[in-house]
């Protein structure tokens, strides 16, 4: 009789696990599907739809930072596809706004800070002459902060390398520092592992592309 009592309990426990696992799977699945779209999406409409999905998930899952992080990344991708400065700025504003929600959930996440720096960096490109001074300093500071929070974050390093390279090139000074940072970034891309199946994966191609310049 004893084990008869245990069996239903075990099954109940297993069933419970299955339910929570399926809830988690549902989150991961929904996220992964849309992450794929923001990484590979071609049209603005596709990305906007994924961003909307991230915002829905983020509103429902109040303890997760990833949905708003990817919504922000999506807006940044839309900004890059805009031709007029006003449209770029508008989407950068949206990217920054939704990223604030992510950092409210997880203020210590280096990836969020690195993405913030990326937004500042793109802000410069809208009007380098008048914004360079303000935003390139801000971008560098933010990348520095992200690296400080997690020295293993390859994206923060790769973005920092880009900024350093651009500055060195502008002043015709040696690019050794920038290329050093890039080397570190590439190493970290190789060694980077995360237990989080939704951890950001982007940035490697950008770093690989920069490798040419550092030869």
């Amino acid at each position, binding site marked *: 009789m004893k084990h008869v009592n245990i069996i239903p309990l075990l099954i109940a426990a297993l069933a419970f696990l*299955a*339910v929570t696992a399926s809830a988690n799977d549902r989150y991961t699945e929904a996220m992964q599907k849309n992450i794929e779209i923001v990484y590979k999406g071609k049209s603005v409409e596709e990305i906007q739809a994924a961003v909307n999905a991230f915002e829905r998930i983020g509103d429902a899952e109040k303890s997760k930072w990833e949905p708003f992080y990817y919504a922000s990344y999506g807006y940044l991708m839309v900004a890059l596809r805009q031709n007029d400065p006003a449209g770029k700025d508008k989407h950068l504003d949206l990217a920054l706004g939704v990223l604030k929600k992510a950092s409210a959930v997880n203020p210590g996440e280096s990836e969020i800070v690195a993405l913030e720096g990326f937004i500042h960096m793109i802000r410069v490109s809208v*009007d380098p002459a008048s914004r360079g001074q303000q935003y390139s300093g801000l971008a560098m500071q933010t990348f520095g902060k992200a690296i400080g929070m997690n020295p293993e974050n390859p994206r923060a390093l790769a973005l920092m390398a880009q900024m350093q390279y651009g500055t060195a090139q502008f002043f015709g000074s040696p690019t050794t520092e920038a290329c050093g940072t890039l080397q570190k970034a590439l190493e970290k891309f190789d060694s980077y592992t995360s237990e989080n199946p939704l951890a950001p994966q982007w940035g490697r191609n950008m770093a690989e592309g920069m490798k040419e310049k550092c030869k």
Partner: protein
Amino acid sequence: MKNVLILCFTMLTLPVFAQVTISGVVTDVKGEPVPGANVLLLNTYDGTTSGLDGKFSFTTTEKGMQSLVVKFIGFKEYQLQLDLSKSYTGLTIALKEEINQLEAVTITAGAFAASDESRRTIFRALDIATTAGATADIAGALNTLPGTQKVGESGRLFVRGGDGNEVRTFIDGMLVLDAYGPAAPNTPSRGRFLPFMFKGTSFSTGGYSAEYGQALSSALVLDSKDEEQSSRTDFGLLSVGADVAHTQAWKNASWAGKIGYTNIRPYFGLINQEIDWKKAPVSIEGSSAYRQRVGKSGMFKVYGNFNHSDFSLHHHDIDDPDVTTLIDVNNNFRYLNGSYKTSLNEKWSLRSGLSYTLTQNNLQQGDVKLNESDEGIHAKLAFDGSLSDKVEIRTGAEVINRDYQAAVDTSSFVPGFHEVISAAFVEADLYASNKFVTRVGGRVEYNNLLNQFSVDPRISFAYKTGKNGQVSFAYGKFRQSPKNEWLRWDNQLGAEKSDHYILNYQLIENRRTFRVEGYYKTYSDLIKFKNGNPFVLNNEGSGYARGVELFYRDNKTIRNADYWISYSFLDTERDYLDTRYAVTPSFASAHNFSVVYKHFVSSLKTQFGATYSFTSGRPYNNPNEDQFNNGRTRSYQDLSVNISYLPKPNLIVYFSCTNVLGYDNIFGYEYSNTQNADGIYNSRAIRQAAPRFVFLGVFITLSKDKSINQLPSL
């Protein structure tokens, strides 16, 4: 066990059976489809994005009462309660437009806003610093914008037929009594405040907000920077002096101090000057700024500035140049400005400030000594509120307390006055939509000295004609106390008044800006000499000014280049002071044209700049002619260049030269008070002190982050 299994099974499969569909279309209030809208059930994953035709459809397994939410940028969020026991098809969701201050129409009549923060400005703070010919002087750079008239011997801003003192400067909302440094007669003065201190400059050539009073023609509103992010030390070695500055940054605060010494004597030793200096100008100046962030949204700022300058020169008599009079000027200036800004709640924010200005000017002309002192305190408290997304309110009160004295050592009589102006203002921005806004408000003032109570209305409208174009109109009534030199003789005078009517069209498209503005302005109660006697004054003067102005700016067409072109036409006459009847005043010119060009050459790490200005002839009175004010000077022309070279991230070499072509500009003529033997009044042209002004500077910045340089301050 069986029961448990059934329960588990039900839990996992039940939703499949309870699936409902929700579909429909998202439109705006006019019925136009809105694509890209997020359609969702609140706090669930379920939802979709509206398609290009605005249509949406999704299924959900949720049950019971749920909130359907539809949201999209630029529209108000829409919510609808749905009982999910059945499907919903054919829903029509009309989204209402949300008024967004960033996207919405702005009132641009009369206003030139330059800001690093707002991204829709047509003139930026950095533009001031890098305009050739301006030598980093705020007034000099703004002189390349429409609405200004070049008055080369003054250096001040003259706006739309107004005198130089009709433009008032405000720092963080607080009045500056004397915004220009002292200058020898007929030589240009420089602004006391350096452009790099400010993150935003708003230059209004008329129709400005009710918040700003005591300005007849124009308000120059400067917003100082917030706290600095990083520590640094700057050195400047200039051909006319040196300066050193240090900035210390903490987590939520920063302190910056600067000391500068300017001595133009060695320079004047090299380059021959029109002026017979005894002692060329020397000045020592210091400024200091402290910023502290308080709580989440509070910002506390203190800024202080002191300046001492002196010079002396021999003034040669027009009839006999060998007869000279010594003019000796000794000037002290102190300015202290404290302000605090914070948000009170989601809707309201508070601004408060206190400023103190002291100007002491000791002037000796021959044997006569005049000691002038002007001391002012300005206190202000203002509130900004968003009552809804359609109504913005600005209201506040201020007191301007001023003590002026002018002592002449040959007389025991000390003319002076004590003026207290108490004022309150209220202004509301009413948005009918993102396309149409009305600003209505007024300013109430009581002036104890003039014993005048006044109500000055302001109203403006702006309408967006398309995605990038807009029309705006502004009207306002403005007043200003008479100049110190009149008020000190007669405390019974009234304020001088003006009315502005401005119509503006502006088109901003992809880094190109076109602007055209027309205006009509009337002056009343201007100071007038009774029967030409400068000691008997009244308020019976009057005048008008009208004109059309064009502005075009383009930093798109030519790569790495930015240029702007301004043209102003002015027709003005005034019957005031000693004029016999209404005439065009000597500072007014009918045509003002300027082109500013800046080009960055990456391979040389150098920015080249050039500014060309043209001003048509200005009137002057020739006592040898029967007709009053009949003379016209020849036109004014100037081509100035500057070069900034950045060999290293923290080093800048800067060179500038005004009037490269050496054009002999004449600003007017002075006449002798008495006729010579032939019955003619002898004359002398008022010229530039030297044909050119050449400046060379080397600027070094030391900081942890080596990429910081002083470019924004040049």
